[in-house]
């Protein structure tokens, strides 16, 4: 069995983010990056399948040099091989450009299962996984919170609005986009990291994958117009007085609004 895990490197959750000069993205220099949290659950799920029996886990990522570190970490956690699309031409790709690139990797690898995170911590679009599934012609499920494998099928639980759970059977090969909290993600052990040194990490360009036209700002149908910090809203009312006074005036307001 072969599992492809697609992962993205995103700014560290504690990084202080500033908008860049032309207001199209954040300033990337000087901040730390990490593997997108959703993707770590996807990787862990793949590694658990590997631990349980025969499976090769291939990780793939698109991005500049710094992404090597994310891939090395994934290899250190137990993945077998890595594919790094390191190509300046990919910068500014929209979700479809990214999906086409990942789909091209998937076509080369022909995995039995593709695992991805539900969304990225920075972009928040949730668009790439279903696009990849469509491009490679695999059934897919998103917001996966539990999986149970059987011959030719994976039964997954999906998280719905309000905490409801939907159970669906997805025939394999398929793509699953996982929700956070699916499992407890392991750490890359120091031994694992040193062993990962010898694991193959292939570097490719968009042209190698035949997607040169689809990537970058040139290939993007969706263009970022502007990124900005929301302005501080007006109209907040600060209630003052003793705790009892605040509580009763708050209650009155809620009643006035007909919410109670």
């Amino acid at each position, binding site marked *: 069995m072969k599992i492809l895990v697609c992962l993205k490197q995103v700014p560290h959750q504690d990084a*202080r983010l500033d908008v860049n000069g032309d207001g199209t993205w954040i300033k990337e220099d000087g901040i730390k990056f*990490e593997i997108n949290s959703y993707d770590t659950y996807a990787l862990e799920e793949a590694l658990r399948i590997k631990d349980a029996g025969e499976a090769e886990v291939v990780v793939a990522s698109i991005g500049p040099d710094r992404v*090597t*570190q994310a891939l*090395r*970490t994934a290899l*250190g956690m137990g993945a077998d091989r890595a594919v790094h699309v390191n190509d300046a031409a990919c910068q500014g790709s929209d979700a479809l450009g990214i999906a086409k690139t990942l789909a091209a990797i998937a076509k080369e690898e022909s995995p039995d299962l593709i695992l991805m995170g539900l969304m990225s911590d920075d972009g928040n679009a949730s668009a790439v996984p279903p696009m990849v599934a469509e491009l490679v012609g695999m059934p897919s499920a998103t917001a996966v919170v539990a999986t149970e494998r059987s011959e030719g099928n994976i039964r997954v639980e999906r998280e719905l609005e309000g905490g409801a759970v939907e159970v669906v059977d997805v025939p394999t090969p398929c793509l699953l986009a996982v929700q956070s909290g699916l499992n407890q993600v392991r*750490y*890359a*052990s*120091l*031994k*694992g*990291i*040193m062993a*990962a*040194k010898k694991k193959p990490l292939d570097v490719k360009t968009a042209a190698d994958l035949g997607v040169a036209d689809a990537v970058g700002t040139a290939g993007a149908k969706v263009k970022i117009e502007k990124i900005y910090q929301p302005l501080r809203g007006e109209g907040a009312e600060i209630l003052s007085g003793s705790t009892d006074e605040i509580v009763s005036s708050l209650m009155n307001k809620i009643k006035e609004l007909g919410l109670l």
Partner: protein
Amino acid sequence: MSFPRWTEEHEAFRASVRRFAEQEIRPFSEKWQTEGYFPDELFRKAGEVGLLGVRFDPKWGGSGLDYWYTVILVEELVRGRDIGCVVGLLVQCEMATAVMHDHATDELRKEWLVPAITGERIAALGVSEPGGGSDVASLQTTARVDGDDYVINGSKIFISNGARADFVTLAVRTGGPGADGVSLVVCPTDAKGFQVSRRLKKVDLHSSDTAELFFDDVRIPRRNLIGEEGRGFRYIMGAFQGERLVLSVMMNALCDDVLEETLGYLAERKAFGKSIASMQVWRHRMADWMTKLEASRALTYRAAEQLAAGDREGDLTVSMSKLFGADLIRGLILDCAHAFGGYGFMEENYVARCSRGVQNWGIGAGTSEVMREIIAKRRMPAGPA
């Protein structure tokens, strides 16, 4: 390219330790500091990830890497914001075990070092005594030979991990007075006559247990001797280099974290209609601290480079680094706490809490005076009396 030249493996290790500190330490650090304790299980968790045997031979479960990985380990653990806990972990993986790794018999390593690296057995280092800590050569705890055993009598103080250790790497007097009478032994804490006489209440590092230990006719087999009899003092001095490096890195990392926290606050806090960070007096003050911290880090990295290369100059550089760091951290943290105004004196404020511990840094692994002695001895002829 910046120095040191971190490789992909260094960076991957850094990312892993950072996540460990963020997920396994930081969320609990306030609770642990209030309770005066962190769970034993953290040793095992750290062992699983390979944090406790970075420099040690793979034969014993270590990773056989150099000091640079230890540097990364310490820098990232500090981000867990619980220095007491970090001290506990570092005593386990460096201070109490390095001598055993370097000098003990394979039998002892199997029995004590291997489970220390996995985190299953907790280690402490017992050198300081109520009668004196700096003058190690004058220590008074004795180990008398009786048949195949040593019989130990005396007491030790300020022993980190002391209240919960499974074994103590213990400095004892097996011979006459002076440095040549000192030996190191492994003393299991379940031996009859061993007693934790008290858990000491400290001003800071609350989650680290620090104890006074009492040895009343404690009988241990002679095979628990580490290396040769009478060479304990030399072993301890040798191991101090690693300890001093670890402490230097810790001080720099803590300064870094405190500075970052402070700069963030100064940028947001306003007085007289403008941000404090826009006031030149504070900009200059912070610029000074950034410069000194950078100098401190450069010195520490130089020491790490020399120690990693087995260069004897490393002993001197690491003493300078620890001395410099201990002076730096006092000024830097107190100044940063001051920058928070009233909040800088409140328990709820991280920098304020750190300021309580500034006194500690010039003490462990040889005080600042001892560092100065080492430096002067190596670099300064005394001239006629």
